[in-house]
């Protein structure tokens, strides 16, 4: 029986009672990865030597010096920089890039006593929603290896779902933590913008990106968010807002809470099986004492075009730094400086990245700036106002995370606009900067369905309270995929 399917509390009890050592826990994670990752393909790089050295050091450390997540293994999405460990963003552009510092979130998980076991696959530069757009490999959904894990944090979600690690970090620009969490049947939180430092996160769209924890249970998720939250002087967009103890929010009591359900989230384009599971989940929340009321978010249908205008504009600016000069890929075919830029970027970036840079450049151009980019920023205001209006009379918003369950690899990627339409459920949250979680709420044809719980700015504690109450009343989080060769 693997240790990787135990919760943080269970693992820490074993570690505290010295029934297992950190080294044994770490070795178990690598054993699971060796057994399963040939099928799942979640990891791009493993750091076994460093991890085992750290595990031994932790085993020899004093009781007093132990951090709150002492001895627990974690995987890191490959757009979060790790000192001395290659960080590629799943792009040929950064294939050999070895950062010289750690992201603040990585420093924090290290300080909490966690052991990083490696870097996780993703869509190139976090641009995509299937993890098929990695330059190196396609990650497979542990529930059905023919299906995508979602994206762009598909590696982070699949590694946790498969039981390779109990914790991972993902990043969410338009749903990239929540959607893969939903498709892989795990818990993924997109915190309030500014809650977690973005220092060391390789930027895609700076006003939307946020690092978030992926775990198997709500409690584990709250513990990891505790560890990585807080103001950081190296990130001027990180918030000085006080960080509460998210674990203490897990009371199980949601009596009297007012839950809003946007009619747009259960309307056209959402699969019937997903709607059924979400409606059944609403009944569970009602039975726990919450009240449910239908509301409207009238600008939802404009969320995707708004998101694509803003995200690509910011991406076109952020990705200008990849010029083949100071780090990253440099073309061998360049005869002069201009060609170093143009050919390095042509050869180093994949199709999706080039497409977004091109559209973002168009959105920011003198001729289209007002009609597209500024217009999108105004619609963004209206989308944020829709949420603020609902939160005047409701505590949280609940709906599906993804319009469908996981789809076959190669199946939907051809129809990009269908994928954009699916984003309606998640991107609005990033545009408004508010927090949201995805938790498992059922299965359809053996594939997980995700329930999304959205809250006000900095109200993650209430989101966790609702999510935990639902989790305690149901058994969905206890199901795990049965991958043949693992040590399940």
């Amino acid at each position, binding site marked *: 029986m693997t240790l990787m399917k135990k919760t943080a509390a269970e693992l820490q009890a074993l570690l505290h009672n010295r029934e297992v050592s950190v080294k044994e826990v770490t070795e178990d994670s690598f054993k699971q990865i060796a057994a399963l990752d040939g099928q799942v393909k979640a990891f791009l790089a493993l750091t076994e030597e460093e991890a085992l050295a750290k595990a031994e050091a932790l085993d020899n450390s004093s009781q007093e010096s132990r951090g709150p997540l002492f001895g627990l293994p974690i995987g890191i999405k490959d757009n979060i920089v790790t000192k001395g460990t290659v960080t590629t963003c799943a792009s040929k552009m950064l294939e050999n890039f070895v950062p010289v510092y750690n992201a603040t979130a990585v420093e924090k998980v290290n300080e909490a006593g966690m052991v990083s076991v490696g870097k996780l696959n993703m869509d190139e530069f976090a641009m995509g929603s299937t993890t098929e757009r990695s330059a190196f490999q396609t990650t497979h959904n542990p529930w059905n290896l023919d299906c995508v894990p979602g994206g762009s944090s598909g590696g982070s979600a699949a590694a946790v779902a498969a039981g390779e690690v109990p914790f991972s970090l993902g990043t969410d620009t338009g749903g990239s933590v929540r959607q893969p969490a939903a498709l892989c049947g795990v818990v993924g939180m997109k915190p309030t*913008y500014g809650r977690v430092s973005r220092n060391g996160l390789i930027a895609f769209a700076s006003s939307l990106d946020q690092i978030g924890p992926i775990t198997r249970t709500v409690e584990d998720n709250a513990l990891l968010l505790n560890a990585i939250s807080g103001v950081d002087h190296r990130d001027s967009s990180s918030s000085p807002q006080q960080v509460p103890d998210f674990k203490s929010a897990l009371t199980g009591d949601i009596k009297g809470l007012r839950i809003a359900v946007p009619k747009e989230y259960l309307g056209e384009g959402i699969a019937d099986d997903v709607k059924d599971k979400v409606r059944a989940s609403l009944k569970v929340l009602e039975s726990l004492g919450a009240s449910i009321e239908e509301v409207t978010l009238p600008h939802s249908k404009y969320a995707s075009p708004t998101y694509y205008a803003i995200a690509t504009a910011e991406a076109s600016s952020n990705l200008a730094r990849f010029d083949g000069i*100071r780090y990253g890929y440099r073309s061998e075919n360049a005869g002069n400086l201009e060609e170093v830029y143009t050919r390095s970027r042509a050869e180093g970036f994949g199709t999706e990245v*080039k497409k977004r840079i091109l559209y973002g450049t*168009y959105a920011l151009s003198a001729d289209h700036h007002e*009609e597209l980019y500024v217009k999108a920023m105004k619609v963004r205001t209206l989308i944020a106002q829709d949420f603020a209006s609902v939160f005047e009379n409701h505590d949280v918003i609940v709906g599906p995370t993804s319009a469908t369950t996981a789809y076959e690899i190669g199946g939907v990627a051809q129809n990009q606009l269908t994928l954009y339409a699916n984003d309606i459920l998640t991107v609005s949250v990033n545009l408004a900067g508010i927090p949201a979680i995805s938790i498992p709420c059922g299965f359809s044809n053996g594939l997980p369905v995700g329930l999304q719980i959205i809250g006000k700015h900095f109200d993650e504690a209430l989101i966790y309270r609702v999510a935990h109450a639902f989790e305690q009343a149901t058994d969905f989080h206890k199901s795990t995929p049965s991958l043949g060769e693992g040590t399940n």
Partner: protein
Amino acid sequence: MTKFTTEDVHYFANFAKIAFSDQEAEVFSEIISDLVEFGDALKEVDTDNIEPMTHPLQMFNVLREDVPQDVLDRDEMLASVKEHEDGMIKVPNIL
């Protein structure tokens, strides 16, 4: 439908500093045309008197004393550089 032409691809690619072959320009002109049409949906939203939202939260300046601090090690930084000499980055001839 707004058509994003192959000439448009080359025009905007020049700003984005990405080389596209004529064949690639054909492919990308179709893809970007779809996106431009997708973005056109925003035109129907009434945004008169609406302020653009540039950032999800109120931003504050972060200031510190202007005191010299340790910076990243030059040799470590240069380890990521394709070509360097005497502590400087080498690039092809500019002139």
